């Protein structure tokens, strides 16, 4: 249990998707104009990361990895399909995004209409594929650790985008030099937020 909490907190603050690895920057910069839309996108990312990381974990450990197919019989023990990782992961992500979209549309039309175009966009958000690839690289011991990592990364991304959106709403009233307005100042603020997040470095729970 302690290990799970540790991974969760670590993936929110220390290994934050945006500030430590710059993943999902495209939508982070494009959708952070208002707090409302960024909250919607943030929730969608938490949702999709929480689903895709464990599914890809199962895929990695029972189909793709070296010797992962041994449950089919001893003759499969030497099979290594890891070169197919990228294409399988991205296929799973595209399919899961589609599935999540259909489920939300069926059960909560209001949430669906508020998320709107963001859901399909998530399929090409680097944070999602990045989550799965980091999961593969870090070799989590079991599926609950993968779930906790997925959710934690999602929450970290959510915090980052909501934070920057709030700052951008306020900064509209400030006197920023003209060439720095918009994109430039957003980068610099993100850098400063990243420095603030660096203070979490080295915390062990």
């Amino acid at each position: 249990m302690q290990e799970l909490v540790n991974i969760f907190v670590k993936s929110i603050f220390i290994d934050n998707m945006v500030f430590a690895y710059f993943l999902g920057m495209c939508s982070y910069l494009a959708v952070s104009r208002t707090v409302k839309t960024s909250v919607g996108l943030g929730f969608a990312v938490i949702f999709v990361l929480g689903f895709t990381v464990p599914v890809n974990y199962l895929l990695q450990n029972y189909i793709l990895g070296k010797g992962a197919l041994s449950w089919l019989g001893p003759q499969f023990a030497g099979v290594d399909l890891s070169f197919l990782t990228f294409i399988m992961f991205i296929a799973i992500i595209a399919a899961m995004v589609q599935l999540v979209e259909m489920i939300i549309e069926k059960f909560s039309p209001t949430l669906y209409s508020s998320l709107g175009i963001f859901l399909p966009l998530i399929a090409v958000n680097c944070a999602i594929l990045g989550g799965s690839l980091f999961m593969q690289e870090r070799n989590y011991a079991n599926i609950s650790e993968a779930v906790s990592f997925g959710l934690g990364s999602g929450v970290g991304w959510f915090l980052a985008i909501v934070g920057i959106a709030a700052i951008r709403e306020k900064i509209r009233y400030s006197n920023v030099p003209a060439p720095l307005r918009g994109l430039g100042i957003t980068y610099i603020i993100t850098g400063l937020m990243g420095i603030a997040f660096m203070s979490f470095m080295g915390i062990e729970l």
Partner: protein
Amino acid sequence: MSENANTPKEALLSPKNRKLLSDPIGKDNPITVQVLGVCSVLAVTVQLKASLVLAIAVVAVMGFANVIISLLRHGIPPRIRIIVQLTVIASLVILVDQVLKAFVYDVSRQLSVFVGLIITNCIIMGRLEAYALQNKVWPSFLDGIGNAAGYGSILILVAAIRELLGSGTLMGIQVIPDFMYNIGYVDNGLMILPPMALITVGVIIWIHRHRDKSLVDVS
């Protein structure tokens, strides 16, 4: 607009085609103007060597992806085009990944997940959607190469600044002479840390927009 200074002078390229190649490097840069593909530009720029390898990888993937999609453009049903594009890109990235693992294993380890993340690099999808789906093969190829070069140039610029100020080296070779250290010069360790990549890019955008006023964000 006059031709950019970076334009290669090849007879094969008509002025229009040359513009395709040169615009993304200058006033239509994918990173500083179109805001595409910023995800990976930041994380791998601690060292020049890794960024150089990634830039070459992106040029290769983008050039070929644009050609393939442009060849297939009449056969792709619009409803499933995103899946088709992702499949093409993912296959190309697998090729690049295997080549990197085979020939430059240490750099491949250093890039870790960022080779795989070329798949979701928005610049590739963006150019496929915006250009290759509507245009002939040769201009699409140039568009791909041009945009990847624009991406790569920022990548390499940021990496050079960070490596020079952060560790005093370029491509792993010491550049700052020893006597500078002896009289008290100290490497700025902060430059190696992730947030400084963002600030460096922010400053590059600032300079870029200051020189070309038409790019200033009015909103």
